[in-house]
């Protein structure tokens, strides 16, 4: 099976403190893999470790066929793009400048964009529908627009793998769907493998090809298709929900919509 990224017996955490132990995961080209699990389970920790923000405590990460450590930092950056939750006011940066930063691994010493780089930036902004934001200050746009700009930035990096940490958390339902539709179509077209964490179970069900469940005690308890994972039993125990609560929330919601529809 061809994988863009793969982890074997991966222990991730901070310093020597293991937060998620023995994770096995594999992402194929064009596939969307979603991490779900309760707050504090360590989904972000796993993603940060795969992204190279944290050193793995044990285990091996493969990018393509080779071990991650065999690549230079720039080579990794040409294969792997991220959208993490870090949010830092980038003073006086326009959206176009933010997107252009995606070309970082490809530009020379001073980071000056070539004509080709500029074209890729323009085309990507067109694809992600942020062309009209080009000259706007990145700090002054809405959360939905910001996530699209960051998506453009990541696509611009021409990665084979994209790692996203809760990309839809701060968006309203329309923007959540818009974002996920865009992500789906772009990554399928460009054969980018996606691994991301999500809190919205119904959306994970909608978008994911494969779901990985990380439990509160830091273990991967189940990996499978949405149909296999989203069962009352599994989800209730994963999130320690009381009897019937899951049905109450989701079935109740569906009934209400259907009754009035």
């Amino acid at each position, binding site marked *: 099976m061809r994988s863009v990224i793969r982890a074997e017996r991966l222990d991730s955490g901070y310093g020597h403190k293991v937060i998620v132990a023995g994770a096995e995961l594999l992402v194929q080209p064009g596939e969307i893999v979603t991490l779900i699990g309760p707050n504090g389970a360590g989904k972000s920790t796993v993603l*940060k470790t795969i*992204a*190279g*923000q944290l050193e793995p405590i044990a285990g091996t990460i493969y990018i393509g066929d080779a071990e991650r450590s065999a690549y*230079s*930092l*720039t080579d*990794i*950056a040409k294969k*792997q*793009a*991220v959208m*993490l939750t*870090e*949010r*830092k*006011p*980038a*003073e*006086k*940066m*326009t959206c176009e*400048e*933010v997107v252009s*930063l*995606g070309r*970082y*691994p490809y*530009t020379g*010493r*001073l*980071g*000056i964009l070539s004509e080709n780089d500029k074209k890729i930036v323009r085309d990507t902004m067109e694809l992600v529908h942020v062309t009209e934001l080009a*000259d706007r200050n990145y700090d002054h746009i809405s959360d939905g627009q910001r996530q699209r700009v960051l998506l453009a930035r990541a696509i611009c*990096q021409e990665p084979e793998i994209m790692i996203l940490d809760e990309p839809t958390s701060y968006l309203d339902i329309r923007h959540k769907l818009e974002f996920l539709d865009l992500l789906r179509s772009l990554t399928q077209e460009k054969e980018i493998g996606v691994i991301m964490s999500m809190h919205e179970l119904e959306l994970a069900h909608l978008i994911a090809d494969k779901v990985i469940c990380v439990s509160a005690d830091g273990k991967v308890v189940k990996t499978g298709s949405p149909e296999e994972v989203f069962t009352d039993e599994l989800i209730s125990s994963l999130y320690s929900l009381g009897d019937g609560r899951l049905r109450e929330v989701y079935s109740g919601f569906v009934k209400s919509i259907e009754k009035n529809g």
Partner: protein
Amino acid sequence: MRNSRIKACYALLGVLLLVLILLNILIGSSSMTMGDALKILFSHDTVSKYGKIVWDIRMPRILAAALLGGALSVSGFLLQTFFANPIAGPYILGISSGAKLVVACVMIFALSHGMMVHSLVMIIAAFAGSLAVTGVILLISGKVRSMAVLIVCGVMVGYICSAVTEFLVTFADDSNIVNLHNWSMGSFSAVSWDNISVIALVVLIAVIVSFLLSKPMNAFQMGEQYAVSVGVDIRSFRIGLITLSSILSATVTAFAGPISFVGIAVPHIIRSITDTSKPVVMIPQCFLGGSVFCLFCDLLARSLFAPTEMSISSMTAVFGAPVVIAMLIGRKKR
């Protein structure tokens, strides 16, 4: 649109720089006409009365103000990038005061043993002081999340260093005090031609290396995680940034004493004019802006109440602090 603003800013700074250099040559306790000055400049006349004044007194001081002002401003910009905080600067974080303390120690020791202190030794002493305080600030920044608290801690560390310096100066031999006192207040007057060549070498190399780091700095402005994700070797980048900003502010402190607010005010003014914070633009413009700002302040410091000369730091505070206050209010509003 933005490009034209950047070009306009370069043009403005270039013109101001030339005008201020000229004014600094002309104005002083013995004024000369434009004709005299130009003749002296182009004939390299170093023997006549005016020739001596221009070449021995005013020129080194002009070069010192231009080079050290630029260094201070770039040092401020590097610290602001590092801490992701526009209020960071070598003076406010106590880094200049740390440098002052170590330089004062070295000077008192050398003077009491009748030794001369070489320019490079001064820079190294100041660099050691800068690094020590930067280390303390970094330790604090690992413990506190709030940037405001970090800045207050920096101010406190600065006070402690200044207090210890005062203490040392008070107990130094009488003859040393005059020398030390002038310097510890901040002044470009004591810089010699020998100093200038060392200053030029150190400052220009540090600024050029900083400029070559523009690209990772740009990525770092988007956050550390992003910088890592696009391939920045974050550890060596951080070390490089801190080392460069320390070298730059140390050089200033070694020769002109601590100078306040230039490192915060100038980058802010430049950002407002050019409407960008891209390091590729900011570093050269901050350097020019710092030169202009310090030449302007030094001109006022020595001519406003002539023959009494004011400390350069009081001038930079008068013009720099309001800019910083305006910036803080402007940020709150948004």
